[in-house]
């Protein structure tokens, strides 16, 4: 094959290599710009990823919903319609197997159905918040300290929601971004 053809195929590959991360960015930016912001009460813990670095894993307060429908199976997709409580935090309005016709919703995954308590346990897809490697563990400690010092429910994740997808924008402790909160503690 002539080198020029090889080069043209290479140019196509270059475009594909740029397109994938660029598409990821554009999708996330679209959600941040046009989506609705919800606050999810959460508890952070500190694991790490070999390629992406340290992150805090967010254990949300909303992890289950009551349901008499016992046919839910593990790893099944679930659509969670959202509303806010009087303090402005996210709450589950309804759950369904189909996309809700109106309102904001998140596409999550069923972990398991508790037949005894008649509860569907599920996980939100936005449960990893990437942090500076020196701050991730301190963030977990700061959260524990903040729990002791102030009112409960003082840690939340700000998530932009659009068409079932969510972008985790930031995590706050006492309304201060968690990275800044950790810096202050130090």
């Amino acid at each position, binding site marked *: 094959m002539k*080198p020029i053809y*090889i*080069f043209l*195929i*290479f*140019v196509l*590959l*270059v475009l*594909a*290599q*740029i397109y*994938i*991360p660029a598409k*990821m*960015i554009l999708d*996330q930016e679209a959600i941040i710009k046009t989506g609705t912001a919800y606050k999810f009460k959460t508890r952070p813990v500190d694991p790490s*990823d*070999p*390629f*992406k*670095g*340290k*992150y805090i894993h967010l254990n949300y307060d909303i992890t289950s919903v009551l349901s008499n429908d016992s046919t839910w199976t593990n790893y099944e997709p679930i659509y969670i319609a959202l509303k806010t409580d009087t303090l402005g935090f996210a709450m589950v309005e309804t759950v369904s197997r189909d996309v809700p016709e109106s309102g904001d919703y998140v596409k999550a995954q069923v972990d398991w159905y508790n037949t005894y308590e008649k509860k569907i346990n599920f996980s939100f*897809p*936005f*449960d*990893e*918040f*990437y*942090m*500076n*490697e020196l*701050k991730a563990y301190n963030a977990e400690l700061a959260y524990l300290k903040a729990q002791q010092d102030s009112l409960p429910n003082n840690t939340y994740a700000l998530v932009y929601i659009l068409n079932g997808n969510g*972008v*985790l*924008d930031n995590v706050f402790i006492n309304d201060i971004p968690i*990275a800044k909160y950790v810096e202050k503690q130090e």
Partner: protein
Amino acid sequence: MNSKLLNELPELIKNQVISEDIALKIRQYYLSKQSDGPNRLFTVFGVLGSLLVGLGIILIMAHNWDEFTRPVKTIFAFLPLVLGQLFAGYSILKKKSTTWKEASGTFLFFAVGSSIALVSQIYNIPGDLSSYILTWIVLCLPLVYLLKSNAVAILHIVFSTFYACNLGYGYESIGETPWLYLLLIAFLLPHYLQLLKHRPEANITSIFNWLLPLSLIITLGVFVEQNDDFGYLMYVILFGLFYNIGKIPSFDDQKLRRNGYLIFGSVGTVIMLLLTSFNWIWEFSMTKNEFLSQEFYIALILFCLALAVLIYSYSKQWVKRFNLFHFVFIIFTLLFFVGMADNLIPTILVNILIFALGLVTIKIGTDKFHFGILNYGLLIITALVVCRFFDTDLSYVIRGLLFVSVGLGFFLTNYVMLKRKKTFENLNNKI
């Protein structure tokens, strides 16, 4: 060694051992080899350098520089990627050397991975490691052919194996089979076949001769979903396939250390047989449904492949004398299906089969005057005896005598062969 020979050339010419023409040819031959040497070294260092820089960039990015704003971090995500693409594009356009192509390809491979990882980090996109790795390797696969890069091909095999293991053996992916792994490896085969055709004796080809079967051995287990018992059969057939591939003259005529297929095939077969020589392995039952499972179909495909290679080898008269190792996968498949009805017969027959393999190997070793093969055969029999040491109700005396006799066998066979070899050498010297 070469310089020593070159230094002796004048003396050889002086004593009329070789002519000046021959001396010139020898000198030219070694000089051409020497000019090839540093290039190869440059390529190796170039690839290693790119590999380390690429991995280093991933780690530096993973630090998460939260002092920078999101747009600045995004630029950093694309910077190594664009740099790698420029280097690789330049290598193609200017028809640069192998060193350039290999090094830029390796760097670009890691730059693609780091850019996707960093974007995921910036936007907190949750990690499904398998799909991340899959996107990464698919985006880099064409580089193998565009840059004719062996380093990218090796990285492709390593990361494809990692992808298959992560998806197939992981806790979070129960019930998922990484079928795409087969496609990923299949895409690489033309590159490998080109290497086998044009550079069969190159070091890089022998790396693939080891890496490819190793990857398949590691990943075969991920295709076993529920019917674990079929796993034994699948592995024995896979090792049978490797053994028969390893006996194809283009592999078999090379040094043993270059023939990963033969070594994996032989050692793997023996290990699997030793494992199945225990009676409790055969305590399983099969239902009709298990014959419709993916494990059964994979075993069937592997069997057909191994049989095709064996028949082709016979038709080409590559198999010159009877060697039991060629047929183990057929015998074991028959035993496996007998094992559904009765668990004693296959246990006994597998033990006999291992013993026979040991004897056959010892015979080959003595015929070839090869101490390595001879002792490998003895090792097979020793391993069999050790296995029986643990699960039979034989008395201690009999077991002890068995060990002593096998130990004596080691001494005697080696001694007899050493004697024969010395006599043979003495005869040759006299002639």
